[in-house]
């Protein structure tokens, strides 16, 4: 077993600050995701709102892309930071810098393009194909940096395997999602949708590999032992996850007139996720006991919150992977509930747990504020999620007896649930706002402390020389 390099003393400040920069950019984009989410929710409850200035076809991609970029930026930042921690330093801080500029530049252009009514029009993550160029380039730089920093592939812990597969798979699926630009891929509508959902379904698995890898690293760090990351069970679960990433995307398109093989493969593979669920329940208590370390209280609390959501989301995902149930849930708000559980409940809480590990906050007052934000968002996310599920069940009932009631009447009957969704969404936003605001304020105050320290050092330096 190799020694754990947690909070490696040799990691230079340059190596540390680059990961932080990604994360800070990410949380700002997360605020944008929430703001446009709020506008979208308002448009659900008051149809026609802002129709002339900010119609829903603009609001939706503004919200979705902001959310995806928050996840990508924070995941890149966490992997970058932890890689430097594990290996002592990053292969190239400069390359990581260039990657950041490419990312940030294209994010700004992408968000602006929506405002001007320029779309990619794909489902669900879309922007003009030209803007994918800099993102592909940035990701290539990331891959180079990850592989070069890792160096030798021998006897690596499971999280390093996850980072390596995650970065490569993300690029593969991202490129695959642009195959439609080749006429023979898009001319057949069903084929186009099949490949589109193959790529986007697996892409989520790609970034999840990065995030789950970081969470295993962090759990090791908190528990002070690396036994798990080298264990057989860790690698078995990693391969199970990878297998699911590659083959279970078909549940998005069960109802398409695509080859039946896709349905059988996806259905079968998805059921292997039951093993993951079984393990989570089995280790629930023990993981809680070993992880409970006061020193890491914030990362620990966010990890715990994510654990809860992994359980709920996986349960829902497994149910939705059964084709006979999927024809009820497909195309309804139950799918949205699942996405929200996965992106907020799992991804965002995990990313924030890395964030608070990386920013290493111990001031009692700040810890209390952030925990308050976490509890508020946890509770409101649950209500938010339930309201979507109930709206989804009602819509499913309508879909299965679609001939009689018009669409607009059905939508009107869902309004009470959309209102609960809006109110809990506002509470959720407030919770996250408290978390992000406290983080940013803490960071700025630390920066000014650092500055005064440096100034003091400079001032006292000549005296030292004179003496």
């Amino acid at each position, binding site marked *: 077993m190799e020694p754990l390099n947690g909070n490696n003393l040799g990691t230079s400040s340059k190596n540390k600050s680059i990961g932080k920069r990604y994360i800070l950019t990410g949380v700002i984009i997360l605020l944008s995701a929430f703001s446009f989410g709020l506008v979208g929710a308002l448009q659900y409850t008051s*149809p026609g709102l802002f129709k002339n200035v900010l119609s829903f076809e603009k609001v939706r991609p503004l919200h979705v892309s902001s959310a995806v970029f928050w996840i990508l930026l924070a995941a890149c930042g966490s992997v970058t930071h932890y890689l430097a921690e594990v290996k002592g330093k990053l292969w190239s801080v400069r390359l990581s810098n260039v990657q950041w500029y490419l990312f940030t530049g294209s994010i700004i252009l992408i968000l602006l393009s929506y405002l001007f009514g320029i779309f990619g029009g794909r489902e669900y993550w879309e922007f003009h194909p030209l803007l994918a160029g800099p993102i592909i380039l940035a990701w290539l730089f990331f891959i180079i940096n990850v592989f070069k920093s890792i160096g030798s592939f021998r006897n690596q812990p499971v999280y390093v395997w996850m980072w390596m597969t995650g970065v490569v798979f993300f690029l593969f699926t991202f490129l695959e999602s642009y195959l439609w630009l080749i006429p023979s891929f898009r001319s057949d*509508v069903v084929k186009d949708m099949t490949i589109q*959902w193959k790529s986007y379904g697996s892409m989520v698995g790609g970034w999840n590999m990065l995030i789950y890898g970081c969470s295993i690293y962090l759990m090791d760090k908190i528990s002070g032992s690396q036994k798990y990351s080298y264990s057989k069970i860790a690698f078995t679960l990693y391969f199970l996850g*990878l297998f699911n990433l590659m083959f279970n995307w078909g549940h998005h398109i069960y*109802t398409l007139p695509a080859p039946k093989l896709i349905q059988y493969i996806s259905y079968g593979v998805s059921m292997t996720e039951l093993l993951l669920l079984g393990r989570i329940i089995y280790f629930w208590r023990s993981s809680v006991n070993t992880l409970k370390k006061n020193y890491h209280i914030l990362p620990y609390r966010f990890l715990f919150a994510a654990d809860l959501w992994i359980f709920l989301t996986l349960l829902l995902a497994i149910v939705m992977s059964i084709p006979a149930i999927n*024809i009820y849930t497909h*195309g309804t*708000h139950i799918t949205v509930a699942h996405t929200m559980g996965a992106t907020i409940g799992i991804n965002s809480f995990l990313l924030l747990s890395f964030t608070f590990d990386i920013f290493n906050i111990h001031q009692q007052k700040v810890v209390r504020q952030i925990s308050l934000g976490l509890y508020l968002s946890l509770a409101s996310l649950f209500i938010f999620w339930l309201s979507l599920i109930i709206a989804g069940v009602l819509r499913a009932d309508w879909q299965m007896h679609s001939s009689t009631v018009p669409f607009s009447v059905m939508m009107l009957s869902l309004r009470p649930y959309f209102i609960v969704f809006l109110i809990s969404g506002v509470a959720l936003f407030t919770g996250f706002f408290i978390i992000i605001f406290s983080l940013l304020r803490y960071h700025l105050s630390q920066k000014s402390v650092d500055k005064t320290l440096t100034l003091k050092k400079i001032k006292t330096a000549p005296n030292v020389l004179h003496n």
Partner: protein
Amino acid sequence: MTDKIKSTILFTFIFMFLCYSFYLYKKSYDGTATVSESPADKGKRIWQEKNCNACHQVYGLGGYLGPDLTNIYSSRGEAHIKAFLQSGTNIMPAFALNDDEVSQLLAYLKSMDATGVAAPDKLKINYDGTIER
């Protein structure tokens, strides 16, 4: 687990994944393929450029604010669709499309309609949990 076993598993998975991917890339699905630069292909581009998908679904995939449009062509007909495109609704913008663009969008919706039926209540559920059309 030794490094050798791990890499063998990894490369087997990658190989299987690539075989599956290329099988799907090669396969043709519905027999209603449209030729590139045909009116339906152009209509598809308009569908994407206007981001109709943000509000509408096709085969249950897309936004949730408006109805699924997979079979709108056969269920409501051209005149109905044209009317919506021209005047919009209190939620849907009135897209200022010219006649060519409207007919291209119609050609796209027609080709989409020909691929199959999207309504989930038309699908048959088997005892093993699979579904069939």
